[in-house]
């Protein structure tokens, strides 16, 4: 039974990484300088929100099973407070920070209609921090002896990094033209 819990924890952990990466990519698409237009924007937005909640469910299972099983020493406190677990304190701690950030992002998004846009946005931007933490946590722990799990995590890392790069560096025609004009002689 204990062993099953351990395997469930690892499986849901990898599933969470993959799903959250998809959520991240969809978010980058929405927030980019060339966002999806028309009906596609609604589909992207809907998927972003639904998958985020779905991934949260997997995360809950991932954490609960990690606490319950006794193969490694992780208690309920260390699921909330970073760097307090007996097992791999540093790598588990990164996951703990990531989970705390996800919780903040999910809660502020569910309460978005009661928050100012600035507060919601400030919290939402921590997704840029949580995602790399989660990926490092995933790569560092428990996937080393499983090529499939490790491969999935690395693929997620690449996909997310590309999406973030595109979000940061992609421009729109307006920005490009203004930049080009500004380079001309104006003074």
């Amino acid at each position, binding site marked *: 039974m204990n062993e099953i819990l351990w395997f469930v924890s690892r499986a849901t952990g990898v599933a969470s990484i993959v799903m959250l990466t998809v959520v991240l990519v969809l978010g980058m698409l929405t927030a980019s300088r060339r966002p999806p237009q028309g009906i596609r924007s609604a589909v992207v937005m809907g998927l972003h929100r639904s998958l985020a909640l779905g991934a949260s469910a997997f995360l809950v299972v991932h954490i609960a099973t990690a606490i319950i099983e006794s193969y490694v020493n992780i208690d309920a406190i260390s699921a909330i407070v970073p760097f307090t677990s007996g097992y791999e304190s540093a790598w588990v701690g990164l996951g703990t920070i990531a989970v705390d950030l996800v919780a903040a992002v999910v809660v502020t998004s569910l309460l978005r209609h009661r928050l100012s846009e600035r507060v919601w946005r400030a919290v939402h931007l921590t997704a840029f921090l949580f995602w790399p933490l989660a990926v490092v946590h995933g790569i560092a722990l428990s996937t080393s002896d499983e090529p499939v799990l490790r491969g999935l995590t690395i693929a997620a890392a690449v996909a997310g990094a590309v999406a973030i790069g595109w979000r940061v560096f992609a421009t729109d*025609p307006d920005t490009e*033209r*203004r930049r*080009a*004009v*500004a380079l*001309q*002689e*104006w*003074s």
Partner: protein
Amino acid sequence: MTPDLVDLLEDSGLTGRGGAGFGTAVKVRAAVSAGATLIVNGCDGEYGAVKDGYVVAHHLDELVHGANLLGRNGIRYAAHRGSRTESLLRAAGLDVLSVPQRYVSSEESALVSLANGGLARPMTKRVPVVFGSTAPDGRSLPPTVVLNAETVWRVAQIADRGPAWFRSFGTADEPGPRLASVSGAVLAPGVVETAAGVGVGDVISAAGGAARSPGGVGLGGLSGGWLSPAEADGAVWSRAALAAYGFTPGPGTVHVLGEDECPLQHVSTVLDQAAGESAGQCGPCMFGVPAAAEDFALLAAARLDQGGWHRLRERLGLLPGRGARRFPDGVAGYARSSLRAFADEVDAHLAGGCSVTYASRRAHAVAV
């Protein structure tokens, strides 16, 4: 300056010679009350204009005298960087504002921005610049009055010779002598001294007359428009008369096309240049003008289909009134007036030909 001078300007009916034709007395009175500094605009910013340079080259003493009468709070002379006008002004020891060689940079608020250490780009005018302006970064810029070089020269003439002399030229509504810059297919291109109310043909004659029989006449540069040869024949050179065609003489530029030039090809070349003039401050200017110029180029090349023709007219209709400034409005008016004046040529191009260059294009096609 003295209150007497403002009265003299009022009596003379002098209007700005930079193209807008605003009453100089009103502007000068505002400048006095605001304590504005003076910028004498000698940029010849309009396509085809050379008259500011002419005033600087031939009437510099009177120009400086006029500026000294007006500018008690400081005077600068604006000229395009690298132009002959700039070097003449510098040689005379005057305070020169060196302006980038761009269409929109010699606009009033662009000059004020440049003079105060900003970029030579037009600013949003909440109030006329003579009462002070706000830079894009929020700084308050001091009151500045910008007057065209010819206007300042006329002020000196009026102070010297009086309003009655001034009003002996031109019409009652548009009095005074004025300069025209004549270019294109004329025997003696350059500046002619004339006045409102003469025939467009008279202005062309004063520049030696058309070298070939004309294929059309462009007035007021990029912010003006076109007359067909038949229209130009009887047209009167004044704001009142040209209002029927939807434009004004502007700063007095007159461009004569020869009958062996395709007018649409000429307009297309000008529009391509205009497409690169944007200061990058609003969509209609950054994207609308180049889009219209692209379609116009297809029209000039006789490669525009019916869908494209519809799109071109739609885009020209969308440009006016939507920009941060009036540049897209001027370009749209310029293009539309050419479609009106050269309607026969437009039909020929939509049918895939060009009555002017058809023979040479056929020869080209055979050669290829």
